[in-house]
């Protein structure tokens, strides 16, 4: 079912964009990412609204009072928090659901890139069975080269005269932009636990995404890079970027 609804449309869409954009697969990934972000924009906005609502709630006097009153009783604290959520009509999972829905899309995007690149017979066979009749067979195989990158392989800039080893330029860019994105888009929080979570997210998430970028096909790393930049641009356009938190290495 996921194949029919997500993977197949995505891989065919990617191939059509590649065909339209002069057979430049890097450009196709960039445009494809922008389209996916536009499609998932309502989910992103819902997530932002939910996060903002949570921040406001955590800054309220009643929330602070509950924290103080039930500091030593974890179960009671949770019960009171849930009670407060119900009273003000807030769903704490409202921010998670859009994230969860986006995860299959991320997997679909990775599979689309991986299938379209068709690096080995099983992938090419998989692609052959997924391609819609109206997509030209002459597109296969994809030209995966861009600059010094092979988008089907993890990227390394090999400059033996200078370094003597391969420098993962794209991975570094992904880690830096992931960190920037997390820092810029995390609103300040009055709640200690949220603040601690934000600090850890700004450290661990870039490292995790960096690991993916370092290990998997650089086409995926390119998606992460474009996606990070788009997130910052989107938040900036909405006036929600927290530029002050940039100055702090600690959590927002």
């Amino acid at each position, binding site marked *: 079912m996921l194949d029919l609804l997500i993977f197949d449309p995505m891989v065919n869409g990617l191939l059509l964009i590649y065909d339209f954009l002069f057979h430049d697969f890097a450009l196709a990934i960039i445009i494809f990412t922008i389209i996916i972000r536009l499609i998932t924009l309502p989910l992103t906005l819902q997530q932002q609204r939910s996060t903002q609502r949570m921040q406001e709630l955590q800054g309220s006097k009643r929330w602070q009072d509950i924290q103080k009153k039930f500091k030593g009783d974890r179960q009671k604290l949770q019960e009171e928090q849930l009670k407060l959520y119900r009273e003000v009509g807030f769903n704490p999972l409202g921010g998670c659901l859009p994230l969860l829905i986006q995860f299959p899309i991320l997997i679909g995007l990775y599979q689309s890139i991986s299938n379209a690149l068709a690096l080995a*017979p*099983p992938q090419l066979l998989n692609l052959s069975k997924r391609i819609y009749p109206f997509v030209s*067979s002459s597109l296969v195989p994809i030209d995966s080269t861009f600059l010094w990158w092979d988008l089907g392989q993890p990227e390394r800039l090999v400059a033996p005269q200078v370094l003597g080893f391969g420098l993962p330029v794209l991975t570094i860019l992904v880690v830096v932009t992931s960190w920037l994105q997390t820092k810029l888009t995390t609103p300040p929080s009055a709640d200690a636990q949220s603040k601690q979570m934000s600090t850890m997210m700004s450290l661990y998430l870039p490292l995790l995404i960096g690991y993916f970028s370092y290990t998997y096909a650089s086409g995926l790393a390119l998606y992460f890079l474009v996606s990070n930049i788009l997130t910052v641009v989107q938040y900036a356009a909405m006036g929600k970027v927290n530029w002050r938190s940039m100055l702090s290495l600690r959590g927002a």
Partner: protein
Amino acid sequence: MPVSLRRLLPALALASVALAACSSTGNPWPGIAADAERAYVAFGPAVYGLNLDTGQEVWRYPQEPVRNRMFYAAPEVTESGLVIIGSYDKQVFALEADTGQEVWTFDEAQERIVGGAVASGETVYVPSADGLVFALDADSGEFLWSFDAEGQVWASPLVTDDRVYVGSLSHVVYALDRASGQPVWNRDVGGAIVDSPSLVDGTLVVGALGRPLTALDPANGEPRWTAESDRWIWASATSTDGVTYFGDLGGRLAAASVMDGALLHQIQLESAITGRPAVGEGLLFVATESGSVHALHLDDLGSEWVEVVPSSKLYGPPVLQDQTLLIGVVGRELLVAALDASGGNIRWRFQP
């Protein structure tokens, strides 16, 4: 460890595992060859020599897995008793067919070796994903010549008395002079070629993704005819007695005249046909993705027998050797099934 970190780490780990699991978009299948005494199976970290009668493992190479070394190409057995096999770590190995002992290696390929080597006389021809086709001395591994196809080559070359025919993923069929490797002609057939061409009755037959089966004049590459298919053609065709047999990814098996490509017979099988059919014992043997092996009559594609290999997917071509039909299996329970070609009964199974 802070409470929130304890919550965060499992979530991140789960995300890692999920993405890693999804990075696999298909399973490779074993490459198989055989001679009168043994079956040779290349899969994953090893090449196996098996007793053809019993399926017992006689040898394996290497004894212990070597980092990044994977074998999926079909092995080739030379007249002098060597098994030639290419690996995903860009090397070619020649092994003693009797013992699996390494005789020579060749490491000048710049990319993986996906397609099987082909031996003819004293020369072995090896395709590489870097677009090069290497001609090596079969007994010593000495480099003789190479040809740059300017596109990945996954298909085994087709070797005749004076020509080497090569199909590339970049849609082009090349005819090379066998002695020197110099190109004689080339022809763009419009689709990626993943299996080797076949030559019968003076006609070169080529299967290409998204294109009809195409027949070329082997002398100059001029098109002669095409035979349509409903879905993409993955495997190449098998030709005998003036008839060429080919399957497509929709499971349609067709028989066409080698003379003009006219459709003679067609049948619909249950799933994709990705392995070139095998001919022998007056029958045509076809494996389908969903695990069925069909023995069909050559004259009308009528069924002689069908055997289902349970819990398996079949992608590679059936290999017929002395009444034994060897089937490479993608599945958890076995790697090779050996069937009786006359009745379809399973003689033995092999799982390393």
